[in-house]
């Protein structure tokens, strides 16, 4: 940890960056994002097993951007978020200094997107086996059982949009939910409004989701929203050869096609 504090202090002193987004101690057993701008604040940096939040979303937050040149402590999900955001022209190469926390506690500095891309090829980026099992269990159900399952989950939804706010890829200034001519997605948090919202969001993240799980973690009602987008990861990879957040200049899977894309349902 001291290495980290030293490194960040150095970066701040020599003005390489103006602010470093890292983890600090949070309430109870939680960690939280902190925005380090002075050597003194750097002393508050911590890194431990509970530091799992994907901090990349902050890179696009208006007030954070205005603090100056940004540095960030990234986990694998954050690295992928950065590349995906780059492919969508939201972050430019060299704009953000990226420190990566290695599993052994040491830190790697990534100087450009290319080195991030290289690193990601060597590391595990998929969803966990637990998540795979949950998806498999759902897939094993009948269609109407799945309907019931999701209906019960969505019933809990209060449309607080924490999932959207926490998602690094939900950076649109105007979400489809905010469009009212026509009102595609009902504002109301009734069954239809909730179903529409979550289907819409999952579709808009299909091929863009970097499986950081922030949506599900953020949900105060504990809805396993991540499964919706996670479930689409393997068909998109298998069908179109695309995985989100692996290349800074990737073409979005749903913005392109192959003349021989395979399907078995169009007659």
């Amino acid at each position: 940890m001291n290495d980290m504090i030293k490194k960040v202090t150095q970066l701040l002193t020599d003005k390489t960056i103006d602010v470093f987004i890292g983890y600090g101690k949070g309430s109870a057993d939680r960690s939280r994002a902190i925005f380090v701008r002075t050597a003194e604040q750097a002393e508050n940096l911590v890194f431990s097993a509970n530091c799992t939040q994907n901090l990349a979303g902050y890179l696009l937050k208006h007030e954070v951007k205005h603090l100056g040149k940004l540095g960030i402590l990234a986990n694998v999900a954050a690295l992928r978020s950065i590349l995906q955001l780059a492919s969508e022209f939201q972050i430019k190469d060299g704009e953000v200094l990226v420190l990566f926390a290695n599993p052994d506690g040491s830190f790697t500095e990534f100087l450009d997107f290319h080195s991030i891309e290289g690193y990601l090829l060597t590391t595990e980026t998929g969803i966990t086996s637990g998540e795979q099992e949950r998806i498999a269990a759902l897939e094993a159900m009948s269609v109407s059982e799945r309907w019931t399952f999701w209906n019960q989950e969505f019933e809990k939804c209060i449309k607080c949009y924490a999932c959207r706010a926490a998602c690094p890829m939900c950076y649109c200034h105007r979400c489809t939910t905010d469009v009212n001519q026509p009102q595609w997605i009902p504002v109301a948090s009734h069954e239809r409004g909730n179903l529409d919202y979550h289907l819409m969001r999952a579709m808009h993240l299909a091929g863009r989701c970097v499986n950081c799980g922030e949506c599900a973690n953020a949900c105060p009602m504990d809805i396993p929203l991540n499964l919706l987008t996670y479930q689409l990861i393997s068909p998109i990879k298998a069908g179109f050869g695309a995985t989100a957040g692996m290349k800074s200049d990737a073409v979005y899977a749903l913005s392109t096609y192959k003349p021989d894309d395979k399907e078995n349902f169009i007659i």
Partner: protein
Amino acid sequence: MSRIGVFVCHCGENISATVNCEKVAKITGELKGVEFSTDYKYMCSDPGQTLLKEAIKEHKLDGVVVAACSPRMHEPTFRKACAEAGLNPFLCEMSNIREHCSWVHPKDDLTTEKAEDLVRVMVEKVKKNKALKSIKVPVTKTALVIGGGIAGIQAALDIANCGHKVIMVEKLPSIGGHMSQLSETFPTLDCSQCILTPRMVEIAQHPNITLHTYSEVESVDGFIGNFKIKIRKKSKSLDEHLCTGCGLCTTKCPQKKIPNEFERGLGFRPAIYVPFPQAVPNKPVIDRENCTYYIKGKCKVCEIVCPTKAIRFDQEDEVIEVEAGAIVMATGFDVLKSDYFPEYGFGKYKDVIDGLQFERLASASGPTQGEIRRPSDGQVPKKIVFVACAGSRDPAKGIEYCSKICCMYTAKHAMLYKHKVHDGTPYVFYMDIRAGGKMYEEFVRRTIVEDGTHYVRGRVSTIYEKNGKLIVKGADTLMGGIPIEIEADMVVLATAGVANKGAEELAQTVHISYDSYKFFAEAHPKLKPVETNTAGIFLAGACQAPKDIPESVAAASGAAVKVAALFSNDELTRDPLVAVVNRQAAPVYSACVGCFLCQSVCPYQAIEREEIKSRSGEIIKTLARVNEGLCQGCGTCVALCRTKAIDIHGYSNQQVYTEIMALLND
């Protein structure tokens, strides 16, 4: 509140036989916002249209629904009628109650109810329609023709003769293309040079045509009517104004042993050279890669001998910028590299040549002055084998498609050979003879019957040299596949026609699409064969697919007509049913977040980047913008846009949403 008029057509009895038209008019007349509704025997007839126009005026209608036949039939008719009555034509919609209702359902209540549903959908849609104006795009009446082969020449002359300016860009030192290399042309055996060279001269002399040879297109920006093109004029090391084309330099150049590209390596040329005697422009260029001065820093013989002091060793490439309203792609084709076929020994045996080399041998201006002589020892070959489909129709090793021209030129080659070597024996190995074309089949027949060419249906498996002869092994499939072995003096491979080298890069530079073979893609294989998917860019000749001369010329004239039509007005008028990106006041500017995921879905490169800048020039936001000149209105970007920042006129989000609601809520 809307004031919509509903007009239900009986179409004689075509509709009214199964749909109760009076009832449809009555029921839909009760809909909110419907001011007037009626039914009539023939809405498209003169009195029908008059009824429509008068109702618009009398009831001050602000929207019209005509329930009749398919809009694909009469939408223009009724929109025009509305416009004549002073109503914006885009406030008129049609309900298809004939093709989609009366003709496909029996006479019963369900059919009439469906007709009511279809009308209701359009009533609700029309409420969300907007008055639209046609899009006007100014047009620069200059055409850029890329490529100076027969297709480019034809297109350029046709356009220039319509009175428009043409800029022609040719990458080689002379125009003329592959046609200038040919000996005689099928099926009439005209001398290629005789029919081509006058046209080349015409290009050089035409007051409307500016010719840039030894030049390449470096970039293309802009869109239909308004392209901006950068052309790199490679240095010829020559002041073209001073040069008289006397040719003294080319005879004095000490470097004389450079394989001549024009002769397909069957002859030599100096380092300062004119590609062929009839070249246009007939002025030399220095091939810097082979010039002694550029290699060793010493020589300058050409400069010394030049009577007008026109040589410029320090001349640099020049990049010029031109504007054009349309572009014709006429970059032609190439032939498959013969090293594809090691078993045929091309490159290994001097006397295995390709078709274009045979053209040079047969050409009166070629390296042998038109006598057929083997490259190895200059002997006249007495037995010659032509191998058709060398690479074509060969998914395993070559290319899948038929190169189309080889059957004919192989027949021509056999015929020319017989005409020049009376005692010679030509063989042709072929898969099928494809001689579809005016006088083509007759021509092939003549080759076989009159000139006694031996046509063997089968593939050649291998060619090897033995005792100065080329042993050609194959099989005759018409004789039950019996093996055939011919001791030939020379072999000519009809190698496949392929996309020109660099076609892919050029397509990307000019922003047009290309197929998997790298040939440029037409907008529609049947109905838009000379258009590309990029508005304002057209195709001529073999850059699209292998074509023979008549076809290339026809396509070129077709492209020229498209250009001339585009140039027939000062402004281009386009249907306004295009996509548009939402714009708002500062500080939002637009709902667009600039992710540009829409950019790659657009088949027309119509989505551009727009930078919103502060007064001090700092970029505040980068947005997508739809170029109205390019957008064709497919709406794929609209469906993709997450913020719904893109919408499309005529099929807007509001319109389709309301249509669904109206359709399902009766």
